[in-house]
């Protein structure tokens, strides 16, 4: 929103800030675009599981790509500060360096999330750092990508501590060889690293251009202002909210693990404390979150509910203090397994939405449905290894304003895999992507129906998969009188074969496996739903007339 009463002098300083801020933000988007376009893994190139950031020399984010996956969005700057402090202090960096790591406790929370950082030098000075983070589908280890079944991180793949992949522009062949020797599809893993590095080199050039254009002092001034302004904006919003502590808790079960998450949100003046005390201890399964994950998802939910229109930057993280008990599923110790940690943190997000929803009810949502991820791997007819990712999305939950949207990833912000790409890069046949009638969380605003996908193995050999299914243990609950949605399910075409919703499995020759997403709960009483909207749902075959009568009190006009 523009104001009109600025004097010309402050207008020009403000204008400069605005122009450069836009450029920093756009640089992050451009970096993202480059990384996505050049990537090899399905998860980055088709599913957009990545994030990019422009940071100051001390690792504060001043441009974050809007397309990032939420859990990864705030992760880059936190990772960068850890690396600058504990691994590569600024004096050890030189032009042409590229640092990589996939350490879950430093980076994105599981081995597949690979962080790549490039220092940006201008006339010999370190002026900033560009970073890209992406989900590479192949990190070795057990077959999967988001498997729940490992007990320790060692089973999940190769772990590379912060290391220079490039030093002064020269590639470190030893690292290259170590990676090559530990993964199934080397050119894919290495290609992803190079794609992420390309995002950074694009960003490097843009940052240098800005410093060339405006000088380092202006760049630093604007960076500081971006951080100050975002911090101030959130603080102002917090100051307007009633002080107090708002609590929520949730219980859920994955495999044989019964887990609890508790959260207490305290607003104190213009500070926000989010404490997960009372949350379950870590478990011997890939369900544990390193602390960084819970910090970034908290920041994400707070931003969405309080200041969604604000451009994202570091200052915005500062008023928020997150704590979680050490050794818990939200702050696990090494060497816990973490691959499927999204199954856990999405429940923390639900609890947080409900807790904050006590303060800003108009921003709250009904319980989310989560996502199903289904990486398939094996060897094709020619013996070549492949990894192709399928899955479903439970949709965006309904709110005070709108119906939910089916098939949308939430809170994760990825994309589905096109069938045509999946079939081109795997020997499998993707049979179906469909909406399932009568599965919505009913309400004045209903959720979308469930999404069903199925995969057929026409080859002579076995194909491996590793499923994670959000909300397979119980139906997501409604909000404010809304009915609950449906839990996620899995099934096989083979008689009597059960496919567990979480964990590894084998797709035998000739077999078809089917995944049905969960659906979010409804929002508000279904009897209050606009009869025309109910009629439209019936007409579109999303809800049968029978269900419409029973649940929504639908009375068709027979005329």
């Amino acid at each position: 929103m523009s104001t009109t009463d600025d004097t010309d002098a402050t207008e020009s300083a403000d204008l400069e800030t605005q122009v450069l801020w836009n450029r920093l933000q756009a640089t992050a988007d451009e970096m993202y675009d480059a990384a996505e376009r050049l990537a090899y893994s399905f998860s980055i190139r088709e599913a957009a599981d990545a994030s990019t950031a422009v940071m100051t020399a001390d690792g504060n984010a001043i441009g974050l790509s809007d397309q990032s996956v939420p859990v990864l969005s705030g992760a880059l700057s936190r990772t960068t500060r850890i690396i600058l402090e504990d691994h590569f202090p600024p004096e050890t960096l030189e032009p042409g360096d590229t640092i990589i790591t996939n350490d879950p406790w430093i980076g994105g929370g599981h081995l597949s999330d690979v962080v790549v950082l490039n220092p940006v030098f201008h006339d010999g000075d370190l002026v900033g750092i560009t970073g890209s983070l992406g989900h590479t589908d192949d990190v070795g280890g057990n077959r999967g990508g988001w498997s729940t079944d490992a007990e320790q991180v060692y089973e999940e793949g190769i772990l590379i501590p912060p290391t220079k992949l490039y030093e002064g522009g020269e590639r470190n062949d030893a690292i290259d060889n170590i990676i090559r020797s530990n993964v199934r599809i080397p050119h894919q893993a290495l290609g992803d690293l190079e794609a992420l590095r390309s995002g950074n080199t694009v960003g490097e050039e843009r940052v240098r251009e800005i410093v060339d254009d405006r000088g380092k002092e202006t760049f630093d001034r604007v960076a500081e202002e971006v951080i100050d302004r975002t911090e101030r904006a959130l603080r102002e919003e917090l100051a307007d909210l009633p002080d107090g502590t708002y609590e929520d808790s949730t219980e859920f079960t994955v495999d044989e693990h019964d887990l609890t998450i508790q959260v207490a949100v305290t607003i104190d003046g213009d500070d926000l404390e989010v404490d997960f005390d009372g949350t379950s201890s870590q478990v011997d399964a890939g369900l544990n979150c390193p602390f960084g994950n819970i910090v970034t998802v908290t920041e994400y939910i707070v931003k969405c509910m309080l200041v969604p229109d604000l451009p994202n930057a570091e200052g915005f993280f500062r008023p928020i203090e997150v704590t979680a008990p050490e050794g818990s599923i939200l702050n696990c110790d090494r060497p816990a397994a973490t691959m499927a940690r999204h199954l856990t943190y999405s429940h923390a997000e639900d609890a947080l939405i409900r807790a904050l929803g006590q303060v800003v009810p108009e921003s709250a949502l009904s319980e989310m449905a989560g996502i199903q991820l289904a990486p398939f791997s094996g060897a094709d007819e020619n013996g070549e290894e492949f990894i192709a990712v399928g899955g479903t999305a439970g949709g965006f939950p309904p709110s005070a304003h709108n119906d939910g949207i089916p098939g949308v990833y939430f809170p994760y912000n990825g994309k589905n895999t096109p069938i045509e790409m999946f079939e081109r890069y795997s020997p499998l046949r993707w049979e179906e992507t469909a909406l399932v009638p009568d599965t919505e969380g009913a309400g004045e605003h209903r959720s979308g129906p469930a999404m069903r996908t199925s995969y057929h193995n026409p080859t002579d050999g076995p194909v491996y998969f590793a499923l994670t299914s959000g909300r397979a243990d119980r139906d997501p609950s409604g909000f404010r009188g809304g009915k609950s949605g449906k839990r996620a399910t899995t099934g096989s075409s083979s008689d009597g074969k059960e496919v567990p919703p979480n964990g590894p499995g084998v797709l035998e020759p000739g077999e078809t496996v089917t995944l049905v997403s969960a659906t979010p709960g409804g929002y508000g009483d279904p009897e209050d739903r606009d009869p025309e909207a109910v009629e439209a749902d019936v007409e579109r075959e999303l809800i049968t007339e029978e269900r419409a009568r029973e649940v929504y009190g639908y009375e068709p006009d027979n005329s």
Partner: protein
Amino acid sequence: MPRDDRLAHRYWGLLLPFTITYMRSAVDTEDERYMYTLGMDIGGTFTDFTLVDRESGEVTVDKEPTTPANPAEGALTGAHRILDENGVAFEDLDTVIHGTTLVSNTLIEGTGATTGLLTTAGIRDTLELRRGSRYDMFDWEMEYPDPLVPRQRRLELNERLNDEGEVVDPLDREEVRERTRTLVEDHGVDSVAVSLLHSYESDEHEQIVADVIAEEYPDLNVSLSSEVVPVIREYERTSTTVINAYVAPVVADYLEFLQSELTSDGFAGEVYMMTSSGGIVDVRTAKAEPISLVESGPAAGVLASRIFGETHDNDDVFSFDMGGTTAKGSIIEDGDVRMKYKADVARVHRFKEGSGYDLVSPLIDLTEIGAGGGSIASVNDVGLIEVGPESSGSDPGPICYNQGGDDPTVTDASLLLGYLNPENFYGGRMDLAAEKTESIFGEELADPLDVSITEAAWRVFEVVNENMATAFRRYAASRGLDTRGLSMTALGGAGPSHAFRVARKLDIDEVVCPYGAGVGSSIGLTEAPRMYEASSTSQAVLETLSADDFERQFASLREEAASVLERAGIDPDETEASLSLDMRHVDQGHEIKVPLEGRDIDDVTPDIAREAFERTYEETFNRETLEFPVEVLTYRLELSEGDRDAETSRLVVPDGESAAPDSRDVYFGGEHGSVATDVYRWDDLTPDESIDGPVVVEADQTTVVADPDSTLTVADNYDITIEL
């Protein structure tokens, strides 16, 4: 035409306030029929016209309010007038080049055909499920538009091709027949989109579907994904094909109506449509692939800016085109218009990118926002002025038009600030209702904000300018471009009066308002070099290709493009081809467009392609390529008639007689406030004259405003440059 008549027309041209002064050298070719080209660009509020006498090269312009109910009516009214006033008969006209917002308006208003979709078994919901991502991850109020084809009209066919295009499950013709009957008889569809899996690779099954439908319902419109957009990724291809099917009957009806009206007026030439990519297509192609017309009008404005840039030796231009409904911005770099291949139209959520219908098609890369003269201003919940994106359009229009509009608009604000002349607006065809405008501005804006009416008007003006500047900055920044140092070309009815403020906000210090700026985009229609881009997809690893493969691909594209241009009356021998390839490393997700500069169709080799790939990769990503194999996916060929000599056609300028300016108070905000300002008629300016701001220059189709800190100069051809 007898010579005396021509003189008479010249005389009338001088008197009539509606057209820019008309003049023609006395060429005595009594027996020969003059050949004229007419450009018509239908915008949201006005339709612009350009008439080119191809014998003398002289160009005349005019405009007419758009008639939203049937845009062809306003177009025909205006066409009659500009021809009559210039003494040109429809028989003298051999070419009409047409730009229209018809396609985007049909999508925005939801007035397309009742459309059905036939698709592969199992995937009918692909259209509704989209790609599953959120275009703004922080905005929990996000929405998507309802699919153009609702679920009950999306029917499935039991068939399958594999990714090589081979038949896995054969198609059953009987099933096609039944499904089509259901669509037509039970659902009343007028148009069918057909999108089958892997049909980017083989059109075999889609062609059978088309055959069966043609047997059953010969008049039913059918759009095949393999023809409309044969690209991999089923959602994007299906969405594009559905949009095409949805608008095709509307476009066909419109073009048939327009053609028959023109024909009954005596027109015997050809109608061509401008495409979103700035190319042209004949009516037959336009009817089959209306998807290519989504940005038909806006594209012409960018082409016009490029031409005006050339006239002023500016290769780096910011094209700013502001009409009644929207404003368009685009950057021309080194004389090149930027292209993109994806867009979303008819955005439903706060005009956010990604909240509309997705399509894949070549388009000029421009940004368009809901900010125009007709944009409506209001005071929002937090006591700030908001402007747009709603527009009063041409009906009812701004308050000051006195045609029933009672919402404050940007044009009204311009009137209250003194930028517009209440007595001589639109060439005197319209008196502006100043008092009524003042009173509504007082009630709706000034009183709630507790400011003067003039201050309220200034805030409206500033907010819309800031909105545009913000959109333009984002556009520039997201492409790694900078607006500083560019020369702005201001076009459209509202462009020249807003340019001085928008330019300052973008750190641009030169604004060019070409003579005829008010109808600039229609000048782009007739004057831009005509071109057509053809492309084909054929995936192969570079090492497996030979020079012959490249030549074969490009030769067939050249043939396709040449036949389109030939139908547009262009001699293929007079054209230039520019080639490019979409390439990537094998297994990468997305390709990059690699120009093959200076190459002909018969001298591309794998080595040349590789070098070009490496160069583009380095330029784009600031790094070297990988040591992994490279593949080619798409071949592109742009055939263009080549740059016309800027001197061959030109706007007819006044005879050089100057007149003293009037004066009125004009408000410039901030430290300046209200200033006594000289007001010139554009035609009364003196070439090579330099005038210190503030100054207002009025023409029939637009008004130029320059603030007190600027200097305005007039070129020989009457183009105005404002130095800020």
